[in-house]
């Protein structure tokens, strides 16, 4: 079952590697991963789709929280949220099928971003399930090549980012002699 996790992490070198490394280390299969800066340039938001069973889901979130660069880890699998994905499909169609393909694209609300004698490149966004249907339909009209962006998710309820306050360092014990 796919678990959708949304992480807010510090935009520090190696932060991405820590997240993916941890998931791989613990044996969780990553289905897709997207990451980009948030409004605050110091922070990134990462959306990960992980293939784990229900029992392991809580563990995954806890392990993510252990990472020092991770400020917040939310499980959006069952929380009220919007999940979207972008797909680009390049399709080679015979002359006769061209109009039919355009009609299908229109039905799905997809846009043609390139057109040539060989075929089209069509772009669409939507929830991952609908995109899967779109790809199947396109596939029935000709040879296709597909690039998916991976799921992006946003929770419907804002969750306040709880940041830990600075911790004072110990008092100086002795001045070190040179």
């Amino acid at each position, binding site marked *: 079952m796919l678990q959708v996790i949304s992480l807010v992490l510090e935009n520090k070198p190696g932060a991405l590697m820590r997240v993916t490394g941890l998931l791989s280390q613990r044996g969780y299969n990553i289905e897709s991963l997207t990451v980009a800066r948030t409004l605050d340039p110091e922070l990134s938001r990462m959306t990960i789709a992980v293939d784990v069973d229900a029992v392991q889901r809580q563990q995954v979130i806890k392990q993510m*929280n252990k990472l*020092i660069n991770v400020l917040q880890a939310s499980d959006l699998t069952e929380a009220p949220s919007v999940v979207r994905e972008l797909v680009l499909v390049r399709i080679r169609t015979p002359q006769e099928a061209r109009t039919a393909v355009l009609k299908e694209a229109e039905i799905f609300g997809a846009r043609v971003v390139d057109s040539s004698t060989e075929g089209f490149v069509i772009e669409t966004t939507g929830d991952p399930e609908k995109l899967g249907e779109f790809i199947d339909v396109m596939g029935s009209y000709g040879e296709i090549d597909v690039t998916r962006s991976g799921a992006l998710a946003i929770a419907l309820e804002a969750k306040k980012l709880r940041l830990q306050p*600075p*911790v004072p360092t110990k008092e100086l014990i002795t001045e070190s002699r040179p």
Partner: protein
Amino acid sequence: MSTLTSGARMLLECLAREGVDCIFGYPGGVTLPFYDVLYEHQIRHVLVRHEENAAFAAEGYARATGKVGVCCATSGPGATNLTTGLVNALMDSIPIVAITGQVTSKLIGSDAFQEADTFGITRPGTKHNYLVKRLEDLAQTIHEAFYVAASGRPGPVLVDITKDVLQAQGHYQPVTAVHLPGYKVFTEGHTGQIRRAAQLIQEAHRPLVYAGGGVVAANASRELRETVELADTPAVVTLMGLGALPAEHPNFISMPGMHGSYAANLALTNCDVLIALGVRFDDRVTGRLAAFAPHAKVVHVDIDPAEIGKNRAPDVPIVGDLKRVLPKLNRLLADLQNAEVKTPDTEKRSAARRAWWRQVREWKLEHPLQVVTSDSEIKPQHLMGEIDRISGGQAIVTSDVGQHQMWAAQLIRFSEPRLWINSGGLGSMGFGIPSAIGAQFARPDKLVFAVVGDGGFQMSIPELSTIVNQGLPIKIVIMNNGYLGMVRQWQTLFFNNRLSSVEIEGFPDAEKLAAAYGFKGRTIDKPWELRPALEEAVREPGPYLLNVKVTQMENVYPMVPAGAAINEMVLGPPEPVAVPVK
């Protein structure tokens, strides 16, 4: 300081402010600027003979004191040699800071001389790690590293510093605070949960405390004792926690698990309330998880929220520092007891408790862990019994990994924590001697035994030089059975006695080896030689190498075979099925 100072000097200043008094390490090209300011500084640098041992020594130091151990290596092979030590510290939650040099920032990624991706290689092997490429980040990073290493669930932190940062000049500004917005340390424990735990414990018919390394890390030994006494429950203490409860305490059963005692494993299997304190339900303790404490409601207190529910879903989870949680729990337990009125239910419970104690005592008598002796050869158990006797619960004992480690854990008693130092989670051979070096530095007042096998000993021979060099009076006791004992045991029991590559041939003459390094060594193989030899070793003002030849094919019992439940122990060697006809 308003004058210009180098990165190397700033690094040293930060270490001094963190209270560091010794660093175990090995210099190299890129760390030269640091070693230059370290020269004749009050912070002592201990030169080891292999970087892996620098990390192990830092761990021995940390285990013995609770302070953060520090090790230092150069770039490339120096840093990669630290890896085993780092993973070891991660598995056993030991606070150490490893400082490594890195090639000049401009050269990173160019496959320069002695360049390695230390940051990438050690990322999964540390609690956290850093690469410092700018002077202005240095001081902040060092203080952050120490804070992360020592707080919450302790662990190893590596700071990789480029050579140009060490050489750069700048103005040192003392760091007043550490900024880690994403690092939350849980200390207090949820009051409601603690109350539920107290209630559950109070009403239990067959309670059992299961305590481990977390109690030692929290320095909560006294609080644990109060809990055990207030709740009047028997207790098992894991390999990593030995000494957290004094071995002589009437409630202490023994170590549980794969080589734990019969009584400990049956108590775990039959208890109705399991009070898990600073433990992680490790597979060596639990055996087959589905059959572990099957009738028990579990109270689990740990500072790491990810451990709670990882292997066993608790009935009462409490995330917090044992040092803060146990006093609250103890107060509630005392209140509940004082407020209690006699009812038929409480009478039934008291009777059940008495029956539980009787049962536990019976189990202890049925198959006790005992010292076995022989007239003609030295039994490994006899060796551990004699070390126990001469230690009197007071000595620091470090151990390597294998059969000797299990017998030492079973038969050597510790009256307080931080006396027993071994590699539990990772089980790294070669740990015994370097960790003794760290421990002896930490506790110069203490008698330190390094108990090792003939396999592990040969992984750390180079450090004999360090021991002599530093004048450390460590007593090295080799339990020599001529084999990689634990591996041999598994081959005997599970691989039809096909002893593939486990015979250790060509073991050096101990007396000559020690003499080559300039100290005393001796080999014994008769049981009547054991006590006088140990006494001679302890009397010797300097280090001592005692090579004890023991029974070759002895197996550690009890043993829970892999995949079995802990109440499915093999208690002794199989009896012959046929008796020869006379």
